[in-house]
């Protein structure tokens, strides 16, 4: 469907004329069709993902049998690609929670149509991320020693270690995200149960929706619980990436030991997260013909958030450089210079500046923000840029710290890359299963929204529309 950018319609969170039944049919049809009538593109995408997942599993087998030595890590670079990818994936997850939690709290109903798959993205990203810290252990099979229980000698894990903080932060984040997501799903699962076409579907969704009736009393408790979960998820998501930033901030390593890390990691996470949201939303709305529900307005807002957080991240870079100079410490100053001009890795820094600073500048223009293809391209560049940022922070920082005698270099190996590529397979497999088996848009919430629009006639976005009219008048 062609979209006239800038028109009043595209400013709406949902196009008029959608009655509840219409919403159901649009969203649930692709979920309920028989296996035989699954779209070809789905099979292709799912197949590619499975292939990559196979690569992932193969890499894990080699890793466990051979040892972490198959990676490029060394002394002094004891942390490298597994940790880089871990931070990268966990960052991506953040946008989902922010959209579903923060925007709900700030009463931004436009979030409704994208929060479902954004949350799914969060959970799958956290799965991909969470496996890395375990896999990069020297002895992955004893990762559970980090759990808070006394071993046979009565020894607890060391609660002072940021790595144990990570365990709690990520564990909480993952479980709460799943809970939040599932509770949001219950009414829609009930809808699927009631509209299921086969016995299998009826049993599957019947079990999943836990016997939801949609009674007024249930809705009352449901909405309160949902709101509280959102209220809890918001600080949680901020704490998670702050905690991960502490892995670096609390160390003594020059280039890591810096208080700017937590806020700047969080901003970076949202930045990368919205890039991923766009990379998923743009094809999804095309494939499922959801342009009416994931409208230009969503893309436009996501783009604005990307631009804002992106600029915060860039600010972070310059704070780092300034701190290094201002600290007066030779180690910090050398590290800063080494990142920017170091003979081995200078290209990484400048490439990430190109990706994270230069490439997002076009987003100031509405025409760019409302061009799906441009947005998709910029999102890809930003994702690469954020990976490079972690590469610079984690690997390059470690190559040259205090004693010149201990300086080294770092070169990733085949297995470093295969495990990274494989993690996309893990993510993709989960995501394709999700869009095939579950409604990728929260139908009950959409119905509420549509009911708002239609019956009360009032439009939650009146003021925005006014503003747009004004703009158009001027132009």
């Amino acid at each position, binding site marked *: 469907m062609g979209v006239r950018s800038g028109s009043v319609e595209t400013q709406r969170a949902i196009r008029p004329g959608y009655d509840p039944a219409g919403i159901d049919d649009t969203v649930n049809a692709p979920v309920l069709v028989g296996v035989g009538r699954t779209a070809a593109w789905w099979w292709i995408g799912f197949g590619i993902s499975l292939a990559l997942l196979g690569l992932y599993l193969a890499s894990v087998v080699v890793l466990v049998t051979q040892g972490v030595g198959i990676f490029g890590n060394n002394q002094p670079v004891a942390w490298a690609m597994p940790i880089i990818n871990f931070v990268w994936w966990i960052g991506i997850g953040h946008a989902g929670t922010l959209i579903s939690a923060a925007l709900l709290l700030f009463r931004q109903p436009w979030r409704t149509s994208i929060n479902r798959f954004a949350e799914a993205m969060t959970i799958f990203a956290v799965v991909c991320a969470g496996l890395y810290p375990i896999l990069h252990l020297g002895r992955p099979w004893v990762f559970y020693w980090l759990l808070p229980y006394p071993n046979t000698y009565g020894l607890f894990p060391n609660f002072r270690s940021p790595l144990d903080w990570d365990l709690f932060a990520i564990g909480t984040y993952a479980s709460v995200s799943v809970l939040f997501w599932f509770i949001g799903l219950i009414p829609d699962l009930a809808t699927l149960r009631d509209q299921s076409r086969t016995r299998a579907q009826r049993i599957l969704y019947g079990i999943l929706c836990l016997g939801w009736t*949609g009674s*007024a009393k249930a809705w009352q408790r*449901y909405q309160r619980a949902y709101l509280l979960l959102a209220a809890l998820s918001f600080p949680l998501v901020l704490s998670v990436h702050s905690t991960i930033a502490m892995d670096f901030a609390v160390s003594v390593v020059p280039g890591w030991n810096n208080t700017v890390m937590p806020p700047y990691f969080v901003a970076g996470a949202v930045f990368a997260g919205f890039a991923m949201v766009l990379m998923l939303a743009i094809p999804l709305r095309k494939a499922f013909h959801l342009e009416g529900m994931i409208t230009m307005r969503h893309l436009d807002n996501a783009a604005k958030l990307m631009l804002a957080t992106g600029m915060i991240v860039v600010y972070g870079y310059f704070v780092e450089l300034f701190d290094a100079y201002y600290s007066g410490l030779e180690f910090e100053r050398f590290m800063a210079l080494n990142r920017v001009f170091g003979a081995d890795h200078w290209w990484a820094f400048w490439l990430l500046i190109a990706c994270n600073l230069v490439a997002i500048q076009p987003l100031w223009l509405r025409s760019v923000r409302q061009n799906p293809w441009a947005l998709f391209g910029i999102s890809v560049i930003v994702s690469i840029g954020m990976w490079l940022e972690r590469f610079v922070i984690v690997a390059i920082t470690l190559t040259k710290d205090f004693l010149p005698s201990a300086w080294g270099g770092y070169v990733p190996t085949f297995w470093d890359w295969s495990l990274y590529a494989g993690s996309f397979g893990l993510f993709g497999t989960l995501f394709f299963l999700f869009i095939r088996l579950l409604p990728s848009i929260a139908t009950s919430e959409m119905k509420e929204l549509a009911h708002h629009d239609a019956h009360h006639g009032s439009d939650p976005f009146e003021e925005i529309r006014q503003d747009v009219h004004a703009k158009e008048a001027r132009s």
Partner: protein
Amino acid sequence: MSASATAHAGAAGAEPDLYGLVAEFDSVEALETAADAAREAGYRSMDAYTPYPVEGLDEKLGMEPTRLGWVVLAAGIAGALLGFGMQWYANVVFYPLNIGGQPLNSWPQFIIITFEMTVLLSAFTAGLYMLGRNGLPRYHHPIFSTPNFAAASRDRFFLCIEARDARFDPTAVRTFLEKHGPVRVSEVAS
């Protein structure tokens, strides 16, 4: 006629078998007016079934606000105490160790885990309390045997006046419900 006959029969003999009378509406407005009227008519044991939350419907049906918020607050406090307590106990009492020359109770380093434990407990309390009080997961509910109840999750709105209501009388309730232009009124066995 036959419908009312069976209703009488039910009222006379199979009274306990009756869960309630359910009216199906095709618009929220109709449901809301019916709900208002029902409360004025003095009915108390009733519930409405809608595809999406309808603002204010719970007051219209005379429902108490939920206590969920307070329960979650309590859980949060418990989580904080548990989180910090665990770390303090492990490091100061249970197995004191000299780690990096730091004091045993290096509380600044215990803050994050304390916070995460707070969130974890309160979040799960919120979710599980909601499910529990709503009787979920549930294998079956009489309301499911309502004709066309599947539409309750799509685009229809149901009002049920339950048999356990003190002032429940099948005939009266039916006539009362019929007044508000339902698509249909049906008896639901328990």
